[in-house]
């Protein structure tokens, strides 16, 4: 009898809770946009954060709210953005493939001494004196970006991170992981790059790095397309104007401006020259 009573009471409790939940789901019903689900499904679901939102679901919500633009998903590329545009019923936007670039070639730079701390860029950058490198702008080479990269496109070469532009999907997770802030988004078709982030004056920079930009402005004077300018002692390329004619690369006295596709060969040539 006891058992029957217990079953009955708990059964009734369960029934009451079930009913209460059913009522609550009606009372507290939140209207969701029916486009939300197909958009979330169309997105790659990598939650890389490259679009600037916390994840794919947040980006989908932002598109519907109108706060996010279509065409921000670098991982999905053209196909995904077309699909989202179709769901939203608007024209798709042409999107350019972007890749990450580590703006440092600091294996030519010197170290202050022997670093024996945590093998982590964040930890090293927070040290008094700004880390183990003499250059306060250069790549620390402990590979936080390598760990952050979802596609394995970044590797360390001679203690400096280098991005394989073929593997890079442009999510820029590495940019957020870099405490130095030297990873930049560049168009995939951009060949000629300035791989230095140093705002140091030429004289000081020469003491610790034999490739870094000294801000001599030779490139600026050479360029016929008004595409490269020096400010803060650092040459910067305007990617919308640059046609990759490599005139500046030929003039650069530091051989810093170069075709990033040729970096590996360039290293070999340079090593032979020494």
């Amino acid at each position, binding site marked *: 009898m006891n058992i029957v*009573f*217990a079953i009955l*009471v*708990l059964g009734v*409790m*369960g029934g009451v*809770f*079930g009913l*209460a*939940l059913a009522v*609550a*789901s009606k*009372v*507290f*019903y*939140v209207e969701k946009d029916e486009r939300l689900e197909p958009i979330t499904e169309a997105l790659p679901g990598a939650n890389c954060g490259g679009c600037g939102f916390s994840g794919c679901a947040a980006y989908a919500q932002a598109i519907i709210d109108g706060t996010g633009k279509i065409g921000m998903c670098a991982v999905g590329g053209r196909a995904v953005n077309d699909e989202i545009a179709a769901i939203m019923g608007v024209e798709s936007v042409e999107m350019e493939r972007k890749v990450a670039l580590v703006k440092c070639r600091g294996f030519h730079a010197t170290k202050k001494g022997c670093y024996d701390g*945590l*093998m*982590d860029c*964040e*930890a090293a950058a927070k040290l008094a004196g700004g880390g183990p490198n003499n250059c306060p702008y250069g790549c620390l080479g402990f590979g936080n970006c390598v760990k952050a990269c979802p596609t394995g496109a970044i590797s360390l070469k001679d203690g400096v991170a280098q991005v394989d532009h073929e593997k890079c999907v442009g999510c820029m997770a590495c940019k957020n992981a870099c405490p130095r802030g030297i990873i930049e988004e560049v168009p995939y078709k951009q060949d000629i790059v300035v791989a230095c982030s140093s705002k140091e004056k030429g004289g000081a920079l020469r003491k610790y790095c034999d490739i870094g930009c000294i801000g001599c402005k030779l490139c600026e004077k050479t360029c016929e397309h008004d595409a490269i300018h020096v400010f803060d002692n650092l040459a910067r390329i305007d990617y919308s104007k640059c046609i990759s004619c490599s005139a500046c690369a030929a003039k650069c006295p530091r051989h810093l401006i170069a075709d990033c596709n040729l970096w590996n060969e360039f290293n070999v040539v340079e090593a032979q020259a020494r």
Partner: protein
Amino acid sequence: MKLLSIAIGAILVNNFILSQFLGICPFMGVSKKMDTAVGMGVAVTFVMGVASAVTYAVNLLLIRLGLDYMQTVAYILVIAALVQFIEMFLQKVVPALYSALGIYLPLITTNCAVLGVALQNTQNGYTFIQSVVYGVTGGLGFTLAIILFASVRERLAANSDCPKCFEGFPLALISAGLIALAFMGFQGLRIG
């Protein structure tokens, strides 16, 4: 004074995770990053407080019906329904809190610290106020433990100087054990 001793007891002396070993699953699962740990801690504190209050009422009902031996089953039922209800309620009424708690809220349904706090309230014969205090401070103890643990794990993850065989969970379990040992130091604490 009794309330203070309950609070200190729940946060430090009988910490739900580190000395009672309740709620280990979220403790290991979402402690890799500090911000997720904080989110989980806040959500657990919230649910433990509300669950203490509700199960107190359910217990009164069970005692009246002479079914107090069914506490465990009834509490599981109540907590599961309650978490579902809170989720729906927050989504409608406080969307900001809902999105802040995110996926942690439904995860708590299976958190045995919540069931633990309800059962202990009954076993210890706490009054309504004492139950709620025990629930909230128990949640705070959970938050303290998971935040401490997340900071340790973040630090460990940054250091690649770890033997391959200990990487990941083995190291996490060992460090959890060491933190629990450290919390044993609070055992001698007596208030009132």
